[in-house]
């Protein structure tokens, strides 16, 4: 495949180029539903953020197709090293909206006990979704290390890591690709090129003709795929995963897509994204596109979207309700999980914090808002 031309499966009218995705009707509908679940989750979080119930969220509008398409290529025993704009992959693999909502609310049921910001999920079940770190690109070489572990043990499992176009400028991208190339590690690098890194457009990010071609210098084949075409992404990631499982090394995939919303719930993209660009990409919406494909195959009919989206909204609303009525983490969670065992100095600091709260009352919550 050419690194410079984006591979497509579903045409604008919903017709396919003949590629057989190997998915049943139920599986195809599940993909469709998962994209709508991502939308429902986003729409709900936007409202929760606007009403001050959660502090922050990351919208996925426009990039749901690549997330779900890529997720279909993985087995439950593979590992995902995700970036934050990616949770459709977690939902596809069966993470429950309520588990994600616990993180959005930072409550006691959150897997990280409310220590992390919203959208910084961590799961080990039903798939390894490695705890998201805010510093961009740090997880990329880690994915290569996890892949190396599979390789050393002779397992046919893969690690898949996702990052944005901005992420390709990080140190981790370069060391990760370099090591993976040398080791022929069973890893898939999936770049979500959504046009912008906050306000920085791709032209300011790189002078390279594509992100996919960056693999070449590291001996890692690069593939560019239409990121708004769920099946094209499935196809590219399946090929890369099969190759990795067979011991034939890593692949870099660039999924060309567009971030239709702001960087986050606190960002105003109209300050820097030209309107025409948004209109151009709106016409390529991944859900519309997949819907037309399903329509052509007779799997979808008028009204399905409203019905399924409504069900998803209900599921997410129920999840939010549960998360909202769950207690905040206790003071002790500041001190636990720093080390395997609580060292004496932290025990002392923890005791002092409880003692102070008993004598002088609790600390007052601040009113600071997240800026980006």
């Amino acid at each position, binding site marked *: 495949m050419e690194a410079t031309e984006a591979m497509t499966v579903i045409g604008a009218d919903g017709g396919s180029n003949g590629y057989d995705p190997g998915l049943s009707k139920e599986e195809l509908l599940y993909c469709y539903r998962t994209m709508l679940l991502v939308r429902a989750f986003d729409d709900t979080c936007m409202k929760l953020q606007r009403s001050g119930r959660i502090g922050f969220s990351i919208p996925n509008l426009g990039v749901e197709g690549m997330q779900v398409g890529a997720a279909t290529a993985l087995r439950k025993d593979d590992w995902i090293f995700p970036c934050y704009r990616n949770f459709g992959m977690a939902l596809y693999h069966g993470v429950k909206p309520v588990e994600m909502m616990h993180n959005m609310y930072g409550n006691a049921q959150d897997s990280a006990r409310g*220590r992390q910001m919203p959208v*910084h999920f961590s799961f080990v079940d039903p798939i390894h979704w490695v705890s998201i770190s805010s510093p961009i690109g740090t997880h990329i070489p880690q994915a290569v290390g996890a892949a190396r572990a599979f390789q050393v043990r002779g397992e046919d499992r893969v690690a898949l890591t996702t990052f944005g176009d901005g992420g390709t400028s990080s*140190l981790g991208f370069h060391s990760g690709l370099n090591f993976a190339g040398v080791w022929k590690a069973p890893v898939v690098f999936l770049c979500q090129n959504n046009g912008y890194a906050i*306000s*920085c457009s791709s032209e300011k990010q790189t002078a390279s003709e594509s992100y996919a071609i960056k693999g070449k210098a590291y001996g890692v084949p690069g593939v560019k795929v239409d990121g708004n075409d769920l099946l094209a992404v499935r196809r590219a990631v399946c090929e890369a995963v099969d190759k990795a499982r067979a011991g034939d090394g890593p692949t870099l995939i660039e999924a060309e897509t567009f971030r239709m919303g702001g960087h986050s719930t606190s960002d105003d993209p109209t300050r820097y994204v030209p309107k025409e660009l948004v209109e151009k990409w709106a016409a390529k919406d991944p859900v519309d596109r997949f819907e037309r494909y399903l329509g052509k195959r007779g799997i979808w009919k008028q009204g399905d979207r409203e019905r399924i989206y409504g069900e998803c909204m209900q599921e997410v609303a129920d999840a939010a309700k549960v998360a909202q009525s769950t207690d905040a983490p206790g003071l002790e969670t500041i001190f636990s999980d720093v080390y395997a065992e609580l060292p004496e*100095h932290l025990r002392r600091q923890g005791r002092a914090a409880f003692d*102070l709260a008993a*004598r002088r009352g609790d*600390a*007052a919550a601040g009113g600071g808002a997240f800026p980006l």
Partner: protein
Amino acid sequence: MANLTLVQAVNDGLATVMRDDPSVIVFGEDVGPKGGVFLATENLTKEFGEQRCFDTPLSEDGIIGTAIGMAMNGLRPVAEIQFQDFIFPAFDQIVSEAAKLRYRSGGQYTAPMVIRTPYGGGIRGGLYHSQSGEAYFCHTPGLKVVIPSTPHDAKGLLIAAIQDPDPVLFMEPKALYRSVKGEVPEGLYTVDLSTLRTVQAGDDVTVFCYGAMVPVAMKAAAKAAEQGIGVHVVDLRTLLPLDEEGVLEAAKRTGRVVVVHEAPRFCGYGSEISALIAENVIEYMEAPVKRVTGFDTPFPNTLEHHYMPDERRVLDAIEQVHSF
């Protein structure tokens, strides 16, 4: 005089030096047309053009490395690191390169540059949008480290930092960006890079603090005053080099000292203040030095207000050293 917030004062400081000195350029992630995520560089691209205020690729190592090259070669770069938490890819460039260039070349090459970066908690930013990493950098000979707490100082110290012949890490307390306002002189002025500021005089207990902890200390001091305890509040503001004489004078004045910072306690900046006092003026001390700091844990999200020193904790320490 204009009445500005701290972030407006930073913006005004940048615009003022850029008008005065064409070699000053400003860059970093999202600092161009967007004006930075906190709007510290708002309108600079508009006024000075893309050559002097621009966005960079997402690489802190690249931002600081290129800033060093520019600084060596006649420009005065002011690089922004979007959050201090993301400075670590550039740690090598700062610690091994910018800070040591003068020394290792016998003064043939230097790096007169400023790294501006917002630090500290209070915005529900969790582990990676809240940290106070000053201690890592204060342990770096060759670097200067500055933290303002008022709009006046933010502008004056920033201009002094940009004009300084050595690399300066300029850490901006993001919690104060919009919560403090004050009179800021128009035009160019500087605040000396090695003198502390007495925020209020008092005779019973001395509190050393800086950045976002200054208003916290002031609130605690007001509460202490209700009990008749006079608190001498000192804003250290130039952490490296430190006004050591000023610190010792302020410690001797009351003989009772509290040091406050958001950063973790172990090997934190408070340890240096405490050691300085112990080494030089212990015979004047009426009570052990007490530190009020962040815990020795990563920075939590939901419970950030428990992690960050607040009025309760500072007041408690003031009372303890006072009644010792």
